[in-house]
């Protein structure tokens, strides 16, 4: 290993040290780590946070962001926000789902609006805009991303989305130019973000009496979005425990068998 040692040191140094990034104003800040109930091998979603987070999504985010992959029947499914079937049905019925054409082949009602029907459990959350062009036109050319997988689709996961949501409170450093129609957010790449600050204290009124500070709202909606991105986390953690226990038992037995068979052979 004499020759290999310095090489090993160099490799390890590289892996641990990482590369230097040019420190300039527009490089995003590293995300802040927050505490999440779903972290760790035994993590589960906090039901209260999921329900409050759903409220934040419904009353704030859903004005611009779709949640295409999530269906209403997920809301009362196992491992989810824990709404009852009746609550989930009522929530679904509050959404208008495109319904045309009708028996006469019409796709618009007498006022020229597209035909709709109330949502049912089988439906997915309808998008706020009918198409990408409409979404861009309403948002200064920027496309609000679908939020179904947003927690998985960003490096840093829940910590990134959380940092971004509470990062609007930070002021740009002296001399930093915020582009026209954009907002300063130090956690966003380039630090100029097209999304206006979505959360303020009291954006929503929580049914369970929790005080709706920006930090609380962000925490709740990130928990909800983490569930939306990974709805089987609880089932997975539970099964993982069982599988691990089984494999440890099996390994133990296989080890004893192996030792017994090899006794005296090496």
């Amino acid at each position, binding site marked *: 290993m004499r020759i290999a040692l310095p090489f090993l040191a160099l490799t390890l140094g590289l892996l641990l040290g990482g590369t230097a990034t040019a420190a300039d104003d527009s490089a995003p800040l590293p995300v802040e780590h927050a505490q999440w109930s779903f972290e760790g091998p035994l993590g589960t979603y906090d039901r209260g946070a999921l329900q409050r987070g759903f409220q934040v999504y419904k009353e704030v985010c859903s004005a611009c962001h779709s949640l295409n992959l999530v269906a209403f029947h997920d809301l009362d499914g196992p491992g989810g926000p824990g709404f009852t079937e009746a609550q989930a049905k009522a929530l679904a019925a509050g959404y208008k789902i495109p319904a045309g054409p009708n028996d006469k082949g019409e796709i618009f009602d007498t006022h020229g609006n597209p035909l709709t029907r109330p949502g049912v459990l089988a439906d997915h959350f309808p998008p706020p805009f009918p198409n990408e062009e409409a979404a861009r036109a309403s948002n200064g050319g920027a496309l609000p991303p679908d939020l179904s997988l947003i927690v998985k689709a960003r490096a840093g996961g829940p910590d990134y989305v959380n940092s971004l949501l509470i990062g609007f409170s930070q002021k740009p450093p002296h001399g930093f130019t915020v582009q026209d129609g954009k907002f300063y957010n130090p956690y966003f*790449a380039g630090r100029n973000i097209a999304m206006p600050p979505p959360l303020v204290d009291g954006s929503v009124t929580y049914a369970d009496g929790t005080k709706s500070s920006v930090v609380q709202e962000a925490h709740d909606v990130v928990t909800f979005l983490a569930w939306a991105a990974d709805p089987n986390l609880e089932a997975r953690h539970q099964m993982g425990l069982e599988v691990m226990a089984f494999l440890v038992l099996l390994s133990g037995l296989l080890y004893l*068998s192996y030792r017994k068979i090899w006794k005296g052979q090496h």
Partner: protein
Amino acid sequence: MAGNSTYVPATGFTRWLDKRLPILRLTHDTVSTFPTPRNLNIWYTFGGILTFCLGVQIVTGVVLAMHYVASADLAFNSVEGGIMREVNYGWLIRILHANGASMFFLAVYIHMFRGVYYGSYKEPREMIWILGVLIYLLMMATAFFGYVLPWGQMSFWGATVITSLFSALDQVIPHLGTAITTWLWGDFAVGDATLNRFFSLHYLLPFAIAAVVGLHIWALHIPGNNNPLGIDVKGPQDTVPFHPYYTAKDAFYLALFMILFAAFVFYAPDFFGNPDNSIQANPLVTPTDIVPEWYLLPYYAMLRSVPQKLIGVLVLLGSLVTLFLIPWLDSSKVRSCRFRPLMKQCFWVFALDCVLLGYVGSQSADAVLNLGGMQLPLVWLARAGTAYYFAYFWVLMPLVGRIERTKALPESIAKSVLGTAGERI
């Protein structure tokens, strides 16, 4: 195999079967009684583990194909919406398949490095090695096609970048490369046609792998296993029957490997994944950093270390073709690095070199390393790493075998393992 079979059919049915399809005889001779060196260590259990990995990938893959839709419009939703949410246990089967690919490559790398360290590619086992390299290349192709199927951003752009390697041929014959990429894509860019043919090939290739695995094992049964000492088997005292000795040992280490596999599947299913692949493919927006899966990173680093497109592609190709040739590049008469002090050093530097290249491949192309005030562009590390990769095979392997003083080889496997030959049988 033939000629000295010890199989004796016990029942009327097995006697009947043995005359018509001697499959039980084959199993008996190749698995049950196959004489195997008694000193194989933990690194020799990866053959069995790899067979397990191939089985897992085929079974989970066949199931996923029942729910997957190979269409540019629907593929992403069929994976992220259908399989991951709606299909019963679809999430489990999908993360088994995705992490199974990484486990497969982890195991194959250990298997290959073991082969290199103990000189298992050397005469008379050249064909085992060559078939193994062929399996490895088929695995890379299969993994590449498979990674495209979820139709995320990294799927799409990975497919674009890798297929575009062929456009380097434009520098040899004008328009040839472009013609080939267009043919590969079935379109003017990666699209619906590309996705469908990749799906077809992704489903096909694993069966080709299984066939070559059959040849690989057949070739193994002609000379029998190499072993950590690298010396030949001299008699029955040097071996034990494969069953129950190595079935028991392989099963135990397979269970340990499954614990590692399960840890990723249940507690870190996205560890090997890339966040960008949770975004549906968008032909108009390229992610800021295109990174292949971890098991291809060293080759990616070598490709990027060369500023000239065609030469970069040739380096990449050369790094793979070289692997086929190492049985003839290595000049040493001694197989195992245990008895080759100098080659052992070179081997470990090579192993670290691969890790280093992997690291460089994972960083952005223009990254700069800050070493206490000294700025070192990573591309220079990539070049040094690439140079060593080729030097290891083309310079050190032929040279070291001629100049090094090897240590004395033990008299026999039995003597080395048991103290004195055959006494304790």
